[in-house]
């Protein structure tokens, strides 16, 4: 356990080093938040209560999305590129020798990264949004910890998906295509572009049961107080179930992949 805590702390520190990059990221998230917020205002002006949200809730949704974008790595930018590179070059063999579990090792590092990005790139855009727009705030104080737990589960789901994607490098070698597809699907089905209740018919139903809804839609709905009592437990159970299922799938794929590792000598 201690080992993984150290790895997580390392992940945190590593991203904390890039201060200019973090500031630049905050700036970009804020700019995009503004653009998106104005489009939502136009949309909710035409259709108040669209998707069951009022205007201030829709605006809160926009800024939660910008705040979670980096933490949940919805556009990539986590560990996956590095892991793929290690698989491609064969450095993965060294990792497999380590007296640590491959998946847990990367999970710990990614949680550290996410923790930093939640603070470094999450808080400021949300504050900016709250200052510039009339955004809905949680009705009671207990919503904040409930929201953070949901975000944590979302980050684990996000990790589990990206771990699976990274492992495809064992077969594809060049994982650029797989990564691109993954973040494309993630961006769309997390509700980053448009809240999932606004997706029409079957598309909306499918989008809600896919793992990506754990990344933004569910945390945002927890924040907006859409889940209470057992509903909240069910929401956590949904996120948790996806997290466990995807992590297990990752383990399975990992064992299949490592059995066919061929280290190219050098």
């Amino acid at each position, binding site marked *: 356990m201690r080992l993984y805590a150290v790895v997580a702390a390392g992940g945190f520190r590593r991203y904390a080093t890039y201060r*200019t*990059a973090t500031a*630049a990221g905050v*700036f*970009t998230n804020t*700019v995009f938040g503004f653009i998106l917020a104005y489009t939502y205002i136009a949309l909710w002006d*035409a259709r108040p209560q669209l998707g069951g949200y009022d205007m201030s809730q829709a605006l809160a949704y926009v800024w939660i999305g910008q705040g979670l974008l980096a933490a949940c790595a919805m556009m990539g930018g986590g560990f996956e590129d590095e892991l793929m590179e290690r698989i491609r070059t064969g450095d993965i063999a060294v990792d497999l020798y380590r007296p640590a579990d491959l998946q847990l090792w990367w999970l710990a590092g990614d949680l550290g990264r996410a923790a930093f990005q939640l603070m470094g790139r999450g808080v400021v855009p949300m504050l900016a949004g709250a200052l510039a727009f009339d955004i809905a705030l949680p009705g009671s104080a207990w919503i904040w910890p409930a929201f953070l737990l949901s975000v944590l589960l979302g980050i684990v789901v996000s990790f589990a998906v990206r771990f699976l994607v990274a492992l495809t490098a064992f077969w594809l070698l060049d994982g*650029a295509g797989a990564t691109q597809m993954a973040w494309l699907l993630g961006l769309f089905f997390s509700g980053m*572009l448009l809240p999932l209740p*606004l997706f029409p018919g079957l598309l909306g139903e499918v989008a809600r049961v896919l793992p990506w809804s754990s990344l933004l839609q569910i945390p945002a709905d927890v924040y907006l107080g859409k889940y209470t009592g057992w509903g909240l437990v069910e929401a956590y159970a949904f996120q948790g179930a996806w997290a466990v299922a995807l992590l297990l799938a990752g383990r399975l794929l990992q064992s299949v992949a490592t059995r066919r590792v061929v280290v190219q000598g050098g």
Partner: protein
Amino acid sequence: MAETVAVRPEGSREPGGFAYEERPRLLEGLRAYGLIVAMWVRSTMAYRASFVMTTFGNLAVTAFDFLTIVLMFTHVDALGGYTLPEIALLYGVSATAFGLCDLLLGSMERLGRRVRDGTLDTLLVRPVPVLAQVAADRFALRRIGRILQGLAVLGYALVTLDIAWTPLKVAMLPVMVISGAAVFGAVFVFGAAFQFVAQDASQVQSAFTYGGATLLQYPPTIFAKDLVRGVTFVVPLAFVSWLPTLYVLDREYPLDLPQWVAFLPPVVAVAFGALAGLAWRAALRTYRSTGS
């Protein structure tokens, strides 16, 4: 790698001498750009299947933007007073112009990394303008996917819109796409100049390039006046698509601007481009290698 570019033109008069010193700088830069681009295209074409897939992927990435707008229109008939085909025209022009610019100059985002790791030094010692080398570095032909997607939306808009076409309006279309690409190009060059100072702040550049392209996909009526003022008078993105497109659509201009501003994009592109060039030169002079 860019290091293997054959930069010495054939028919160089003295052995070992470089002929471009006798050519104007701009031509020299364009020629070098062309050579480097051709090299990257050749290397891309070595893996044709991969090229087709990544181009398609690039097309799909941007297609999701438009899909989002289409999904919005399943709930409303108009956004900020504009119908879907009208927004499609704004989108198509902005996406095509940005795609064109991204294809030609998109690699400049990597400049910050080169400054950080010191590989920019390699570019400085070559007798080729640095800007041309940075712009052509890792030229990615797959970015053509973005242009195709923009053109597709533009085509949809032109088919569905009922526009009273005049020769002036017809001429406006190619003019605004090309000068729009040039305006975006100037933003890229400004961004690259900024990266000399900020080093790992390439995301700031994305806010203006990708952010600007996203902004222009929606009508100006939905944005706050100050924001519209900013993208008209400070970073003149409004000249990429808003002002000329609103002329084609016979719509009112934002900020009560006079009608003739719709014809300014080429002028704005040249002026803003010249400013960007000055900023680039100033930034390049401040460059100090990391020494590594």
